[in-house]
């Protein structure tokens, strides 16, 4: 590195690292993280100021060399095995003050609600024990309190813990979950996201705080198919709100919408865009929806927020096996439970029990470093369903198998189970009961 040698006069006095490349990122209309880092560096009398000077120095060093210079390690708090992301500098001889720059992953309230008082308390704690740098939020769904020395990790956690907050997940463990704003402010919500979220995570905290699963396991909760927290793509266990009765239509407001936006526009943006051609616009500008053909995609409701809303018989779908690229490629969750009513205490209890069954399956059957989606691919969906006690359902597939290479000599028994299940759903008594 050559640039580091040309320190200007002002920097010499204060030992400030020059940051010509980062300085460029202070321009422009978007709020600048660099300006923020400099505010911390320049904070008079704060213990973290020298640390942030060296952090800026190391970041500039990365910009110059196009390489990262952090390595992991092991740092944790008393009684816990995870939740702290250790970072040790590989260029500590140049930037000694930021040689330890760990992150505490702290679980936020579901839906990310804060008061300004709470945010101020968090800032005070992080000025006292950390670097003053906080991210709302990491992609993992945690508040990322970044920049803590090994020594300060315990007191920082203690202070946050006394404020009412706890460490999230890291490593081969149950991870921090995420839920959409949902019932707190969204009319599309089909279940109490935060209740399911807290119920499930707080029941399995041991799996979070003392990592012992084969690999990570993530839950995410979205109140409807709009999936505002990207659950299908990113969660091992995605809970998505839905309903099974009819979409609610306020025909008067449909007419108002058509009058305001125009008939052609309504046809182009609502009728023609329904994925299952379930909607038609009547001659009198009212809507007709073929509800058994509707797949609860949310599109028409998103467009006509006043006139249309989800039905009353609400619940959730559970999709299992989503994950990011490493290493078999990205996977989306597969529909495993098409509909589960979520209303009473018992309903929520049932969801938690199903989550427990799935975590246990994962703990017992996944290979080391395998996500549950990969386990399912390895053993086949029928074996997974068998293990978690779910019956096959046409909603699990885009279409039935196209390959004939399968042994079907027990087909009749399987078909009998299907008819028996259908009979039971229809309220009929099954022979022998």
């Amino acid at each position, binding site marked *: 590195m050559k640039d580091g040698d040309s320190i200007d006069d002002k920097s010499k006095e204060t030992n400030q690292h020059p940051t010509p490349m*980062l300085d460029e*990122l202070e321009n*422009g*209309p978007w709020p600048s993280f*660099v300006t923020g880092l400099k505010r911390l560096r320049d904070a008079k009398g704060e213990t973290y100021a020298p640390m942030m000077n060296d952090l800026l120095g190391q*970041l500039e060093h990365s*910009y110059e060399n*196009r*390489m*990262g*210079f*952090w*390595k992991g390690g092991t740092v944790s*708090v*008393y*009684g*816990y095995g995870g939740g702290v992301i250790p970072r040790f500098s590989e260029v500590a001889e140049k930037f000694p003050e930021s040689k330890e*720059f760990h992150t505490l992953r702290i679980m936020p*309230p579901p*839906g990310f*609600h*804060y*008061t*300004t008082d709470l*945010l101020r308390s968090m800032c005070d704690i992080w*000025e006292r024990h950390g670097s*003053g*740098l*906080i*991210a*709302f939020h*990491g*992609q993992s769904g945690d508040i990322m309190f970044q920049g803590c020395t090994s020594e300060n990790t*315990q007191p920082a*956690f203690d202070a946050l*813990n006394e404020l009412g907050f*706890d460490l999230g997940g890291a490593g081969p463990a149950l991870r921090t979950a995420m839920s959409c704003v949902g019932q*707190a*402010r*969204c*009319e599309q*919500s089909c279940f109490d996201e935060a209740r399911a979220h*807290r119920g499930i995570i*707080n029941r399995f*905290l041991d799996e979070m*705080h003392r990592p012992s699963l084969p690999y990570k396991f993530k839950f995410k909760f979205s109140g409807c*198919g709009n*999936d505002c927290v*990207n659950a299908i*793509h990113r969660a091992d266990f995605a809970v*998505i709100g839905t309903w099974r009765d009819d979409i609610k239509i306020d025909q008067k407001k449909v007419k108002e919408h058509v009058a305001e936006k125009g008939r052609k*526009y309504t046809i182009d943006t609502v009728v023609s865009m329904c*994925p299952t051609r379930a909607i038609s616009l009547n001659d009198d500008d009212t809507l007709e929806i073929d509800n058994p053909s509707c797949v609860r995609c949310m*599109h028409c409701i998103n467009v006509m927020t*006043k006139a249309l809303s989800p039905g009353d018989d609400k619940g959730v779908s559970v999709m299992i096996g989503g994950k*990011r*690229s*490493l*290493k*078999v490629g990205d996977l989306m969750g597969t529909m495993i439970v098409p509909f589960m009513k979520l209303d009473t205490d018992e309903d929520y209890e049932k969801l938690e029990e199903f989550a427990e069954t799935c975590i246990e399956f994962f703990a017992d059957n996944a290979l080391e470093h395998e996500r549950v989606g990969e386990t399912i691919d390895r053993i086949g969906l029928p074996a997974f369903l068998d293990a978690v006690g779910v019956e096959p359902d046409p909603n699990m597939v885009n279409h039935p198998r196209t390959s004939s290479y399968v042994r079907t000599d027990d087909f009749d028994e399987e078909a009998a189970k299907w008819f028996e299940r259908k009979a039971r759903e229809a309220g009929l008594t099954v022979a022998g009961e």
Partner: protein
Amino acid sequence: MSSTTNKPRTADEIGVPDHFPYMHPVMKENHGNWDWHERPRPGVLRHISKSGDEIFTIRAGTQRQMDVFTIRKLCDIGDTYAEGHVRFTTRSNIEYLVADEAKVAPLIEALGEAGFPVGGTGASVTMISHTQGWLHCDIPGTDASGVVKSLMNYLHKEFVQEKMPNRLRITTSCCQINCGGQGDIAINVQYTKPPKINHDLVANVCERPAVVARCPVAAIRPAMVDGKPTLEIDEKKCVCCGACYPPCPPMQINGADSTKIAIWVGGKHSNARTKPTFHKLAVANLPNNPPHWPEVTAVVRKIVEAYKADAKHWERMGEWIDRIGWNRFFDMTDLAFTKHHLDTWDGSRKTMNASSHIHF
């Protein structure tokens, strides 16, 4: 020394905290009872409850990686102009909740004066979801906050208005693990060279051949170099995925010149209209060029402009491309279609066109 230190405090295993104490009282009272909403202007949502109550949400962009002074400034604004209750979106925008409509305009003005753009709602380009990068991750090929800052400077104008065909969601990832997730446009690190093994690090340190098992294409095998046990890579097989690097630092995948940027398009999380989709490769091998990544911004600009000009209202990026066809997409964006766009991974056959349907 240990005899003088106190026994550490035992953690209170609180888990996920209760959110109600922090929620705006109007939201608490109308929990689960919302009726409909509208967007009076970009960056503002008005939700109406079945009880007739209303709550206004004012959404503003932040830098995500925030210093305590920025957070306190946002709090000051929240105390002076709003009602002390805020929340964050999945994409790190801050939302102020106010029940009193009269507060909306002064709040917007105060945010504007303090340099926080108000917008990111509806058919806009909202904040880019991103990860840690050079600032804090141990395996990054590029920075995250810097790429995002450069792009958001350019995209700012689309953040503060709702003039796109539908929402446009951009993500970045600073390694091929892809923490940033799927996006209408995804800007991701793409390694272009097999890892260079640091044999000095490996020799005598490593006893865990499990890294061999980490490789998805079985390209890593044990070897001897200078009489010492180490590993070697079959460079013909290696797909440069970087999977071996997180568990094994000697597998040095990052390189100042070999770490490049690829841009992907057409990913979608929501179930609205079409099913969720993964993003697809648009262009690879763009230089990793801090501090402004101008080559990346130029391509993003072309894609954003083509989508904005040609897509129909409510069509997301992937839906637009499905309609117009990939050849028109590559035409309109002046990008090349190469053999590297043909998938070769498991299941690639399903990505091929097995019909006589063609686009002109």
